[in-house]
């Protein structure tokens, strides 16, 4: 996603004496050496944290310094968030201790940690959309009096923001800001509290590449000013460009520490995933994935093909019924007026061919949600035509349960039932299927049989019959939804961020599953994802949306991350072709 360029590494910044002194004494670039120049320093000593039978952090010892971004790399469930939450006072370790500047600290609550100058920005923003930037920043500060007087603080906050390169209109309501700007407000909140230790949990997961760059630049800048900046992420390319120290975590343990400039992407990825054998031993049941002959793509530089082996996602052909086989779906001149509940779409012309994976690349709020709503039958456009297989069709066909497309939604909580059981969740989209009904009654045995098979195939845990939808973790809920939608075998699947919350291995399986879905030429898939890497590797064609329009549709062979980034930022195709040299074809 981000081009690797070692000359931008913070080690060349001459303010970074501590890092350079470490560099001077390190051997073979593998171990971080303690600094002796008295800057802020965090030391974790054998920190262990258990949740029931799950060991989230297992005997973790590490050091964190100022002078550059310290990144913690690991998959979902590796323990990075838990470790940081211990540091920020949300949890107490079961064993082990934390030292800040050689003082033993024991935070019993986030408030205590905050008083120590530790601040954390979570994956979910804690901003009030209807209030302005200024008000949100003030609300976060304990010393703000009961009656707000924003004008007094406005100047000081504005100053502080400018000094750290944060360029925001303090009086803009949050609802009008884009994701990167909201991220900056969160950081500003921490700065206003004079936080000296900043922890950011997956800050770039929702951002387009140019937005991610901005945030990471800001973070580098802050780190160079004597603060500790900790970045939790699973994006390898980003941290190779911006992090000065990388700690790889896997299954709750520290695997190794590296300097940002001295390690390769493949090595990091291999360490992040580790041996698949050990993961399987941890599971109750074996993962149905063939482990031999399988290697993984990580960066544009190292191109190795993924060979999915004999796939055990069996296709149940008896399930295919009542679905209009659509070879070709087209939206012509679709217009939607802006309203209180949705944004506008202007003159959308989209063609989804049978047998293709069509990607949509867009910054948040560009109209892709409205496009998805139209395709899934939730929104009927004012103007425009729907053309199926060359014939105009009524919009109503998209909301007919037996003909509608499969939809992996952006918000899984709005497509699942927390208070009902897992098999009922899977039944949600199957109520029209005759094989599960006996007159007005539900054939519970049949449905449960289907549910068990689906849950098994997609490895959803916990899997017992009476488990409620609400008991599933984010990743498992995503798997349940994928299981349900893939089973629908619809001729069009609209998948929005399908690999969100999934670890690398599962993400790759899903990408393969997506490719298989359209292989055979009768089905198509629309893939919307903030991960440009995913789009470039899975799709055949990509359309870019910006401000409610489709800016361009190109074959994936003539696109790369930079051109996509430029298009997503609103540039036209002509400008992009002018600015960039002809991109190298991606395999």
């Amino acid at each position: 996603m981000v081009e690797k360029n070692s000359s931008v590494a913070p080690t060349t910044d001459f303010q970074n004496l501590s890092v350079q002194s470490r560099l001077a004494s390190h051997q073979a670039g593998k171990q971080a050496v303690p600094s002796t120049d008295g800057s802020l320093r965090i030391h974790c000593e054998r920190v262990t944290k258990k949740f029931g039978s799950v060991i989230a952090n297992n005997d973790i010892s590490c050091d964190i310094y100022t002078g550059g971004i310290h990144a913690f790399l690991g998959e979902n469930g590796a323990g990075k968030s838990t470790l940081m939450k211990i540091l920020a006072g949300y949890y107490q370790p079961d064993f082990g201790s934390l030292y800040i500047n050689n003082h033993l600290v024991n935070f019993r609550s986030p408030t205590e940690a905050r008083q120590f100058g530790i601040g954390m920005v979570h994956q979910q923003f804690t901003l009030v959309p209807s209030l302005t930037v200024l008000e949100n920043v003030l609300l976060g500060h304990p010393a703000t009096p009961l009656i707000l007087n924003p004008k007094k603080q406005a100047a000081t906050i504005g100053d502080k923001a400018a000094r750290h390169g944060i360029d925001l209109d303090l009086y803009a309501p949050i609802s009008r800001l884009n994701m990167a700007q909201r991220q900056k407000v969160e950081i500003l909140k921490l700065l206003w509290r004079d936080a000296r230790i900043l922890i950011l949990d997956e800050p770039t997961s929702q951002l387009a590449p140019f937005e991610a760059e901005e945030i990471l630049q800001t973070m580098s800048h802050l780190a160079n000013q004597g603060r500790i900046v900790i970045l939790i992420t699973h994006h390898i390319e980003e941290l190779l460009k911006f992090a000065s120290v990388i700690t790889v975590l896997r299954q709750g343990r520290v695997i190794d520490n590296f300097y940002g400039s001295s390690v390769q992407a493949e090595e990091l990825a291999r360490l992040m995933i580790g041996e698949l054998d050990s993961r399987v031993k941890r599971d109750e049941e074996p993962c149905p994935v063939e482990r031999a002959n399988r290697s993984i793509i990580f960066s544009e530089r190292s191109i190795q093909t993924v060979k999915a082996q004999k796939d055990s996602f069996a296709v149940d052909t008896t399930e295919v019924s009542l679905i209009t086989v659509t070879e070709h779906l087209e939206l012509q001149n679709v217009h939607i007026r802006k309203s209180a509940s949705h944004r506008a779409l202007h003159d959308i012309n989209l063609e989804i061919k049978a047998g293709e994976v069509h990607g949509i690349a867009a910054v948040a709020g560009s109209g892709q949600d409205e496009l998805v709503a139209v395709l899934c039958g939730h929104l009927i456009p004012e103007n425009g035509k729907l053309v199926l297989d060359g014939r105009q069709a009524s919009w109503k066909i998209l909301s007919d349960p037996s003909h509608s497309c499969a939809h992996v939604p952006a918000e899984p909580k709005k497509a699942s039932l927390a208070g009902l059981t897992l098999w009922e969740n899977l039944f949600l989209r199957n109520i029209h299927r005759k094989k599960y009904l006996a007159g007005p009654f539900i054939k519970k045995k049949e449905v449960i049989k289907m549910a068990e098979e689906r849950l098994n195939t997609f490895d959803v845990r916990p899997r017992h019959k009476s488990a409620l939808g609400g008991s599933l973790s984010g990743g498992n809920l995503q798997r349940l939804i994928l299981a349900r939608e893939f089973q629908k075998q619809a001729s069009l699947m609209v998948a929005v961020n399908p690999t969100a919350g999934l670890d690398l291995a599962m993400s790759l399986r899903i990408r393969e599953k997506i490719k298989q879905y359209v292989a055979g030429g009768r089905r198509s898939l629309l893939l919307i994802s903030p991960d440009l890497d995913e789009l470039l590797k899975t799709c055949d064609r990509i359309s870019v949306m910006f401000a409610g329009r489709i800016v361009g549709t190109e074959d994936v062979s003539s696109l790369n991350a930079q051109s996509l980034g430029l298009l997503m930022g609103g540039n036209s195709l002509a400008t992009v072709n002018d600015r960039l040299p002809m991109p190298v074809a991606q395999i």
Partner: protein
Amino acid sequence: MLSVNREKIRQICLYTAGSLFAVILAFAITAIFLLLVGKDPIAVYGGIYQGAFGDSFSLSETLVAATPIMLCALGVAIAQWLGMMNVGVEGQLYLGAIGATFVALNCSSLPAWQLLPLMLLAAAICGGIWSFIPAVLRVTIGVSEVIVTLLMNYIALLLVEFLIHGSWEDPTNVSWPQTAAFPAAAELPHFFGTRVHLGIVFAIIIAIVFAILLPTTKIGFISRVIGSNPDAAQYAHYKVKRYQLWAMIISGAVAALAGFSQVSAIEGRLRSGLSPGYGYTGFLACWLARHNPIAIIIVSVLIGGLLSGADSHGDTGTDLIGMEIYTQ
């Protein structure tokens, strides 16, 4: 698997312990009030129990009081299962009474086996219309059904007053706020010479039917999805608005049955003050029973027992007791 069962049992124990504690606390606080007024709490409680379940007469009075509460509570529950809060069961009860009265007064020559079903139908239709109005406002323009149903209760009361003092005035007793007496054929049959009437059978049948239909049928499933997560129902292309509309209509119709059974079996005419708040009590019963149909039957009987027991105890403090024990 075992751990799940253990967790479930633990939760059930905790919940029961919590409820038990609440009940004991309610009795204790009421006892304090009774002592302040100079009454012996144990004697009072004993008297209430006697009056509620002590002998066959008490029991029959309890069931008579429980019937309209049960029907109203079921009405509230039916709407609530799909996320609609129907506080208008009191008004729908009265509309049911009006519908039944219309048929009784105008078709008085019909035999019972024709008259009663006709009265039931009229009551259900009137109650259904009364709840249809707030429902349609809610699903089309998003007006809060809580407010509309509540306000329509007052309209229903005034409508009854209008009819009683107007065209349905009792010619034999003009100054009394009531209609003429119904023909004998318009009376719902009673059981074993007590005042317990067929209405309670309606209630129990309705409760059992819904208790079976909700978990086992496709319509029941769709209803539960709409009630539990309307976003998910929308996502799955269920016809949410249509289901919500019908849920409210049926809710009103069931509450109307309470009105029908009261005027038919107990009162024998439509009069002012027909319902001493059965609708609101029913609403409370539904929430106490957490909208579970079988629990509604039990809770309604308990509340009916409380009302009739306190009534027969004949003490001035009985209303107070009633309120106190409610607040568990």
